[in-house]
Every structure is written in C-alpha cells, then in structure tokens.
C-alpha cells in the first residue's frame, strides 16, 4: 500500500485533481490517510466534539437526575446564572485569577529563565528541579500548600508570627485566600513558562550579545533590547496558552481552598463539577460550561487577532 506514496509525486496528483479526476494513486493516498487518522479523529469526535454539542443542548433544558426533569426551558438556566451568587462570584474570580496569575507568571518565568540560562555551577541541578512544580500532581500541590499555610502549624504563618508578632490566618480571609490561589498557581506554572522561554533564549545568536557587550550595553539593556524583543512572540503564545488552560483548571482550587471561604475563590470549573457531578443538575451545570466555552472562544479570537498583527510586524 505504501508504494503509492513513493510513486505518486505531488505534481501528478495536483494536475489530475485540477482536471477533476482523482488518479488511482491519489485515491489510494486518501484511503491510506483516512485509515491512519481515523482512530485519532474518532476519539476526539466521540469524547470531545459530541459531549461539547450535548453540553450546549443540555444548557437549554432543566435536565436533572435527582428531580427527574428533562424539558426544554429556553434561556432559563442563563437567567438563573445571573441571579446565582456562587456562579457570578466564580465568573469574576476566574477572570481575575487567570489574568493575575498569568501576568505574574510571565515575569517570574522570565526571571527563572534568565537564571537557568546563566553560567554557574549547579545549573543542571537548577534546570532539573525546575521541572518539579510542573510535574507533580496539582491536587497534591494544592494540599501541600494548604498545610504549609495552615494558621497553626504551617511553616509560613509560623514564620510570619515569629517575625511580625501577629497571626496570619489565610483561609478565612477572602483577600488572602485569593492571593494564596494566585501565588500557588504561579509556583506551579512559572517554571513551565521558564522552560519554554529558556529554549527561546538559547535560540538567540550569541554574537548579538557579544556585539552589544562591545558597545558597552549593560546586562539589563541586553535583556531589554535583545532577549525580550526576540522572544516576544513566544511570550505572547505562552500567555494565551496558559490563559486557555487555566480558565478550565479545577484541581488547584479544589485542593487549596475548595472555593472558600464562602465562594471567594470559587472558579467556573469547580461550579460545573459541583452542580453537575455532585448535585446532578445537568442542565444548570451545562449552562455554566457554556459560559466557560465562551470565555475560551473569546481568548481564541484575541489570539487570532494578535497573531495577525504579529505576522505583519515581522
């Protein structure tokens, strides 16, 4: 079967298809292609595309396993969302937390990448442990930090008490809890960004730095005017990727605060899980999922616009 690929050169295929008659080889290429990609597309169709379409459909029903209802209710779920304190809070915190942690992560990620790119003994060690926050389970990181920040026996509050003479009770304070979620997210994701930035930095030709050094540029100037502009596309790409992934993230908040105190740190993904899997309110949960989908789509459109611009300027 594979011989078709060697014998049918691209030009032959093109000429034939322009005439509207697929050649025998071209046909066989299509068959072969279809065979090879079918498992991947089948998986995606059944467990991603179909469920998403179903979710959108459920969002217009009052489908609930416990109540036993399943009727078309129009936009009722969306009206309910605007009156639901928990979901509204989750929506605003999701946006705040994703934006804040992404901005901080870009900064911290660049700093870590600078360090990992420097020449010093222990660099390999640093590069290796840098992968640990990314690789360990998010749920474990959530619980570890919750214990690390425990108001009575956690390391950080105890140190704070020793230094400042005051108690630090994080998880009953909405503002402190929100900062805790954002900063633990930074701990988890900034090193991953650093890995990508480092790879970008290693691609910058060394003679650019040499030339700048000869001209007397300081290390900050070299970073600001050589490194940063050259890895800017990478920084934007990473920021958008992380925003999309963090929007749907659920494990960290589940472990660290479970959305508390009250609903101060609740996120949309957590609300979907609660309403859908814990309370079996499929219709309502699906409407929250659709809000999440719209957010992701919005970021996607922003991404497309940004990439268009980037294409023009390079």
């Amino acid at each position, binding site marked *: 079967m594979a011989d078709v690929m060697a014998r049918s050169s*691209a030009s032959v295929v093109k000429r034939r298809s322009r005439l509207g008659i697929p050649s025998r080889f071209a046909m066989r290429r299509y068959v072969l292609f279809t065979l*090879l990609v079918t498992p*991947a597309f089948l998986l995606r169709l059944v467990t*991603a595309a179909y469920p998403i379409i179903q979710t959108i459909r459920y969002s217009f029903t009052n489908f609930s396993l416990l109540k036993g209802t399943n009727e078309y209710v129009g936009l009722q779920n969306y009206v309910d969302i605007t009156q639901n304190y928990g979901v509204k809070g989750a929506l605003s915190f999701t946006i705040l937390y994703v934006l804040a942690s992404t901005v901080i992560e870009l900064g911290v990620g660049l700093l870590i990448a600078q360090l990992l790119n420097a020449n010093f003994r222990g660099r390999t060690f640093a590069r290796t442990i840098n992968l640990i926050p990314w690789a360990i*389970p*998010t749920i474990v990181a959530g619980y570890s930090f919750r214990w690390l920040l425990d108001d*009575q026996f956690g390391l950080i509050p105890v140190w704070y008490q020793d230094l400042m003479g005051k108690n630090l009770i994080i998880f009953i304070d909405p503002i402190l809890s929100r900062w805790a979620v954002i900063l633990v997210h930074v701990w988890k994701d900034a*090193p991953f960004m650093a890995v990508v930035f480092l790879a970008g930095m290693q691609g910058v030709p060394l003679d650019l730095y040499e030339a700048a050094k000869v001209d007397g540029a300081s290390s900050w100037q070299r970073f600001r005017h050589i490194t940063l502009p050259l890895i800017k596309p990478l920084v934007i790409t990473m920021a958008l990727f992380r925003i999309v992934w963090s929007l749907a993230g659920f494990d960290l908040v589940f472990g660290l605060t479970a959305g508390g105190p009250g609903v101060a740190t609740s996120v949309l993904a957590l609300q979907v899980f609660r309403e859908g899997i814990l309370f079996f309110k499929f219709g309502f949960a699906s409407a929250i*999922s659709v809000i999440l989908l719209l957010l992701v789509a919005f970021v996607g459109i922003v991404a497309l616009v940004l990439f268009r611009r980037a294409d023009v300027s390079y």
Partner: protein
Amino acid sequence: MLKTPSRKYRRSILFDLNKIVVYVSFIIFCIFVLLPIYWTLRSSLANVSDLHKTPLIYFPEVTFQNFQTLLDQVPFLDYTRNSIVFALGTTVLTLVVSFLAAYAFARIQFPGSGVLLWILVLSMALPEVGTIVPLYRLLSKANLLDSIRGLVLVLSSVLTPFTVWVLVSFIKQIPYEIEEAAIIDGASLPTILVRILLPITTPGLVTMGLINFINAWNNLLYPLSFSVTPSSKTLSVSITEVFAGYSPWGKPWELIMAVGITMMVPIIALILVSQRAIVRGLTGGAIK
C-alpha cells in the same frame, strides 16, 4: 600603562558581583521550588503528634507509621495499582493513536490536510470540565462508568492532539529517502511503520510517553467524576478522600501528605532521569 591594571581590577569586581547575584538568585530559586516538597516529605514521615507542636519540629523522627495506617484503613494498594494501570494504559493508547495520525499528517499532504491537523490541534482548547456531564452519560450507557478502560479512553482523547502535534514535527525531520528506499524494495506500510519509522522516532515517542504518563498519573477530574468504587479509583481520588476525613487532631495531614509523597516520588524520579527528554517534548511543539 597605568590604566590597564585598574580596569582589569574593576572588571573582576563587576564579574564577582554578577556571580553573587546569580548564586543568591539560585538559592532563592531552590527554596522557592523545594520548600513545599520538603514540607510534604517531612510531614509524611513524621509522627502525628510531632506535626502539632510549636515551636515547629523541622526534622522530626522518621517513621513509616503513616503509610502503614493508609494500608490498614484505605484500599491503598488497589488505588496505587489503578493509578499505574490508568497511567500506562493512557500512555500506550495515546502513543499508538497519535503515531498513526502523525505519520499521515507528516507524509501525506493534500489540499485540506493542514486544516484537518489544525482542527485536531485546536480541539486541545476545549475545556475538559465542559464535557464531563455528557461523558458521564455516555460512559454509563457504554458500561464503562467506574472502569479503568473508560478512564483510559477519555483521557487518551484529551492527550492525543498535543502528542500528534509534537510527533508530526519529529517525523518531518526524518529524511523521506529512507522510507523511499524501503518502498522501492517492496516493503509494506506496516513494515515501514514498525521496522523503519518506529526505531527512528523512538526518542520522540519516549519523550511524549513520559509527558503523557505524568499527565495521566496526575489526572484528577476524570477519576473523581467517573469512578465510584475502589475498583477504578486512583491515588488522586484517594488523596481527596483522605482529606475529607477527620482525626482527633483535625485534618489528618500526616496521611494526606503520605498519599502526596506516594504520588510525587515516581514523578520526581522520572524527572531526575529524563529531564532533557521531557524538556525537548515540552518545547518541541511550541518552538518552530
């Protein structure tokens, strides 16, 4: 003549200053990364009472009592076995499916094949949590609820797009002449895939295998949503269950941290032996 030594002197001070900045940042970085790891390890290996004392005991006497308690009180071995089977199963299925698709995308091009690849890769952005309700019903209809097979199927689907994306760029780097020669010698497609492409692509497959294994091992959402009994619950579910319990001391932190360490150790071990391979995979898709 006089100027030269003084300039050299100034230079060496500057040089040292740079070194100092680097090493101070290095130390801060190590504390930043390792503090939570130390805290988890210390708490998992300590006696309960040692964790609830102030001033804090930084290096309590080491005991494996917490792990013994876990073995006695929860089906810990079942959970561990399920985690391993789930992670390995997902890794293998994802690699097989992705390798076939990546080969097609890398070697057979026609108008529209690029768009298909983009559709597949962009489907990565679909939020998984938005699919759990319909998936829950789908799995229950297919009799795959509360089974490792069901979990493997849904997670492999999530991991496939990124794996295909990275593998396509790996395969494209392989010169086509090698396959061409085999084709002229009359080799069939399975022979080409298994005998020629597989050995050359092994580094890429190992890298993506590691990344997928880590992802599956860490996955919480699917087992938490679709597992009902210990027959399919994984360690990530077990840690949430242990957290839900209470002990006379409050939350059973020594046990939670013991499950945490059990989940961390294999992952950290993998990283220590394969840092380079993993970085290559993480950056392979993004840079190019």
